[in-house]
């Protein structure tokens, strides 16, 4: 694999029983690229991302991240892979028993940070998302937008080299959505590879970036937006 390629997919197929979700996807994403993945609901965007962070295994084909083959990776090696990624989940995936701050420090501790350093970084990340005043709240007490921002703060807190975001602005108002995109652009500018799955066309128009259009399980378009 060439040195600059961070994500490479080869003949990627994913099917649930007889229903084919992804059909023979070939793709590579260079280090430092900002890429949108779009398509109608049910096009397979979320499945595409889940295959990248190995929450699912492909039916056939290969998934390579940072030079390592993911689809054949053992469970033991998965934590290390996932710690290299910042994943922003569509359903937030916050730990309900932990406060907003703890949700972030919890992840930072897996990166080997001391408790104090993890708390400092978590606070800074929350501050960047304008959530420092909610640091002691439990996720159930947060609004949809606040949960979304907490999930984003968690994903960005440890400055990952690859960011995968699944509908990151789905619960945010236009102003916060623009702020988030600006933040992702900053992080991308610093060298991180960003892949954002969205069905929001206004988001695609906000940033000139490579756009992949997924339709019926295949990449229908790969280029700048609008086509």
């Amino acid at each position, binding site marked *: 694999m060439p040195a600059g390629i961070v994500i490479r997919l080869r003949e990627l197929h994913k099917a649930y029983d007889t229903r084919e979700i992804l059909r023979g996807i070939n793709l590579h994403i260079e280090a430092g690229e900002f890429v949108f993945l779009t398509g109608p609901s049910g096009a397979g965007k979320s499945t595409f991302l*889940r295959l990248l*962070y*190995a*929450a*699912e295994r492909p039916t056939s084909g290969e998934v390579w991240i940072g030079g390592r083959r993911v689809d054949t990776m053992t*469970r*033991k090696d*998965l*934590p*290390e892979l*996932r*710690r290299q990624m910042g*994943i922003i*989940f569509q359903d937030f*995936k*916050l*730990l*309900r*028993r932990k406060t907003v701050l703890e949700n972030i420090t*919890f*992840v930072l*501790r*897996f*990166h080997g940070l001391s*408790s104090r350093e993890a708390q400092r970084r978590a606070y800074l990340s929350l501050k960047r998302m304008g959530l420092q005043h909610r640091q002691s709240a439990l996720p159930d007490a947060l609004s949809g937008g606040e949960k979304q921002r907490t999930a984003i703060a*968690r994903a960005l807190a440890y400055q990952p080299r690859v960011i995968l975001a699944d509908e990151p602005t789905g619960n945010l108002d236009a102003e916060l959505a623009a702020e988030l995109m600006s933040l992702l652009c900053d992080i991308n500018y610093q060298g991180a590879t960003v892949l954002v799955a969205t069905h929001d066309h206004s988001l695609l128009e906000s940033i000139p970036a490579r756009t992949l259009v997924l339709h019926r399980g295949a990449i229908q378009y790969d280029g700048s937006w609008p086509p």
Partner: protein
Amino acid sequence: MIRHSISEATGLLRQRALIGLALAAALAVPIALGGLTLFLGSWLRPYVGHGQPTVIVEVLLRPELDPGERSAWIHDVAEHHPDWKLREVPPQDLAARLSRWFPYLQGLMQNGNEELLPPLVEVRAPEPDQVTLLARDPKVLAVGPTTSLRRAVERAGRRIAAGLLGLTVVLLLASLLLAAVWTHLEIYRHADEITIQRLVGATEAAVRGPFLAVICVMGAVAGLLAAGGTLLMVHEVQDMARTLGLPQPRLAPWIPVLQIMLAVLLPLGSAWIALARHSELNLD
């Protein structure tokens, strides 16, 4: 990682303190019974014959048999029962042996009348009941003694030890199953959290640690309860032995230590297997 496990385990314990305590008590019962079995086993060993695989039965022969006939009889019986060891009790020991049969005639027998005493043959046999069949032999006056306190203790000891051992094994298996089921239920109760932890890069050790720490705490509590329960039961047995005039039994110090170790290690092993099996499931 250890600090993380302890902190998470504290949260789990706070949430499920009562159930945890009930589980510890359920685990303590078989381990306490196991401790009692070991204690009774070590106390009753001389009686139940674990140390000596054979039991001594005495056979009283007819007094009219001369030494030649007695030797021939002993030879004949030994030939038919190769696993028995027969020995004629020497005349100087006869009075002491027979005084067990006829305690009220002890004075008469020890008063220089040894030549009048009937011959006695000592039989060491693994199955004393087989020896009692010799009573049908016309050369035999009686076989025994068969109803001593020692025999009663021997039989009771065997039954109690076997019963307790069986009960302990069944209860222990039930408790281990309980620990495994509890771990499974807790894992499924926290399935979402575990999934999230894995998705954000938590290692298996970080995911399993809190559950194992909780099991360790519950096992330690169960071990202490079991050791305490065994001490109480030992105290009762000691009282009973004192009343019956039997040798005073003592609890070996390694028994409570073993109980605490088992109470921690057995459910830990059970939980380890449950967690390992769970990690094979694709919850992501």
